[in-house]
């Protein structure tokens, strides 16, 4: 099933990897919102609902990261998709989880120009708690995929979201987890993410969205990004790490508000009210 009826599918080769993209427009035609997924994900897996919601208002480009041994390789993939699919139109870059770290690097390095940046459940520098979890992940990956599916599901989603599932739905959520071909490399890359030295070079207006009960990338990391990126605003939502799955409508609203007007109406340093509806 296509992610959106209007999306044109294509691919670019970057350093031996193939990166697939889904573009609801074409180069030069409209400022795109570019969506970069997280570890082991895809445009469909992480933006299934947010993509079509955004596509009703914006040109949207989703991409499926190709295989890469290094963080730099992933950064190049995103830069290349943007270079190929745009001329000079302003780009709003949205990164989720590992995608947020990649998007941060893309924005800081300016090989392509990023007009606005949104970082969802992101982090700048991997800490020891994350590393301990990655260690367990690799052990379970080698020994017991079912246990890994349960573990990953419990770590991904917020308590409220999990609580609301019936036992059958919870099991279905666990069973639906798959391990993509590039996931092991991406988990290795996660161990040593460090873009902390580049944050001062991020000058694009930035929106940081953190999940209050995120156990994978605790919200402290989003708060630190908010502290480090000068031109940033902060929104906390009551989700776990799977923010785009747990609260897609609110994530959509935050991105849409920000891309359309927020940099003008909300100053750097502002904390957004996410409780009102």
């Amino acid at each position, binding site marked *: *099933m*296509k*992610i*959106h*009826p*209007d999306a044109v599918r294509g691919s670019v080769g970057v350093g031996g990897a193939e990166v697939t993209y889904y573009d*609801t*427009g074409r180069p030069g*035609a*409209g400022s795109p919102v570019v969506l970069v997924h997280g570890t082991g994900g895809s445009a*469909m897996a992480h933006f*299934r*609902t947010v993509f*079509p*919601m955004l*596509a*009703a*208002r*914006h*040109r*949207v480009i989703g991409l499926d990261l190709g295989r890469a041994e290094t963080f730099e390789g992933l950064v190049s993939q995103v830069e290349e998709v943007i270079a190929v699919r745009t001329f000079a139109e302003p780009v709003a870059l949205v990164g989720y989880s590992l995608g947020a770290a990649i998007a941060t690097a893309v924005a800081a390095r300016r090989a392509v120009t990023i007009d606005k940046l949104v970082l969802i459940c992101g982090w700048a520098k991997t800490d020891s708690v994350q590393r301990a979890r990655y260690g367990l992940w690799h052990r379970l990956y080698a020994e017991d995929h079912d246990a890994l599916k349960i573990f990953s599901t419990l770590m991904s989603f917020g308590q*409220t979201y999990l609580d*609301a599932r*019936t036992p059958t739905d919870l099991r279905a959520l666990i069973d639906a987890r798959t391990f993509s071909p590039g996931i092991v490399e991406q988990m290795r890359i996660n161990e040593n993410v460090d873009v902390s030295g580049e944050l001062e070079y991020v000058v694009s207006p930035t929106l940081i969205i953190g999940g209050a009960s995120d156990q994978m990338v605790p919200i402290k990391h989003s708060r630190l990004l908010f502290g480090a990126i000068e031109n940033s605003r902060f929104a906390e939502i*009551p989700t776990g790490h799977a923010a785009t799955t747990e*609260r*897609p*409508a*609110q994530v*959509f*609203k935050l991105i*849409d508000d920000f891309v359309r007007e927020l940099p003008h109406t909300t100053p750097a340093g502002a904390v957004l009210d996410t*409780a009102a*509806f």
Partner: protein
Amino acid sequence: MSNQHGPYDVVIAGAGFAGIGLATKLRREGLNNFVILERADDVGGTWRDNHYPGAACDVPSHLYSFAHRPNPDWSHIFAPQKEILEYIRASAREEQIDDRIEFNAEVLSAEWSDLDSVWTIISSAGTYTARVFISAVGHLSDPKMPAIQGIESFAGKVFHSANWDDDYELAGKRVAVIGTGASSVQIVPSIAPVVEQLTVFQRSAPYITARPDREYTTAEKRMFHRLPETLAAQRRDMFWANEERYAQRRGTPSLVQAVQSAALNHLASQIPAGPLRDKLTPDYTIGCKRILKSDDYFPAFLQANVSLETTPIVEVVGSGIRTADGALHELDVIVASTGFEAVDLPIAHRVYGRGRELLAERWNMGMQAYATVAVNGFPNFWIINGPNTGLGHNSSVYVAEAQIEHIVEAISHVLESAAGMLEVARAVEDAYSAQVDSMSQGTVWLDGGCRSWYVDARSNRLTTIWPDFAFSFREVNSPFDAERYGDDNSMHEIEGIRPIGQLAQ
């Protein structure tokens, strides 16, 4: 004449969620010179009238409540009708609105006078004058009986689901339920165990998803009391979960298919493959009509005394219903569960604006109103739950509250301004409606291949539903700005609107 009342600042027609909600806000703003005219002898509107067996809400109760009156004591996720009615009664009592309601006062006509800028409302309880007249009578309040030949000749009992006769004993009776909408799926499983024989007459099968209802525990209820933030958090979760559902219901094949599969799997898990399941399988795109929630409707058809009839009804005779195949279904009772007059609102046939223009005439090609509340030619008149206020996916109380925010400010403006009058320009109203129309294009309601009360057959316009997120309803329609009512500005664009489902350019 003692039957002459007023002048009031505001007369409100209707004491349901909308009327009580508006009155509460007026009270809290210190605007106390108002009266509510209620045609029945109690508050509660649709929740007073619809007391049929099994009546309950299918929006979670913590969301289907006033924002200003959270209720930690809801017994279930989806509270039953009695409890919702009691909630509205308590609201009226505790907000000191009870003594501002004239019961048994049905609005027969309301007419604007240009001469003195006054509304004159003639009711069954006397004549009222007011500077502002508000219709809060709802859009699902006037039962629609099926137009079936010979129905008056039926020897047994006939009633609409909204006029349920609680004293009538159904045990041992042969009962027909006509219709398979939101009321029917609650009635059928509730009466099936009691009646001798139950035949459900279906024109088109509804999509039905699971209804994850349960009782709240004592611990949860006291937690909501002691930690109000836990209740507020629950309410936010429910709101945003419903907003996600909106996106599922239009436009995107992958999302539409996901919810369609969920509904069909629900059916398959309850009804074995075969002719019965085939008859219960809808033949149109999901979301085109309201998606219903029930866990006990489908299983009711597995009972020996319950049958589903899909052959069209031809006529009613003295002893029962005759279907197109010539069969006569012998009956003691016919329950018309056939919905409400939502497209051509009965109140519109009673409201006369400038130059005695009838609202129903103004709307003869379908309803429209600026910000869903104001109509050109009808000064100092606002309507709650009028055009484009239905939501297929979220709480109608939220919608009414959004309108009330706008209306309370508009009323304050009228009462404070020298002119004492506010009327939206026709150009503004038309431009607004054109934008709503353009949002509707390509939606499942217009293109989904079904007949529903969402669309006005006279113009094929989507006049009853808001074709976007609930949050955008509030963003677009709540803000009041008197300047924007006028013709002398170019701000006819709906600012801040985020239509979804339209194809990006």
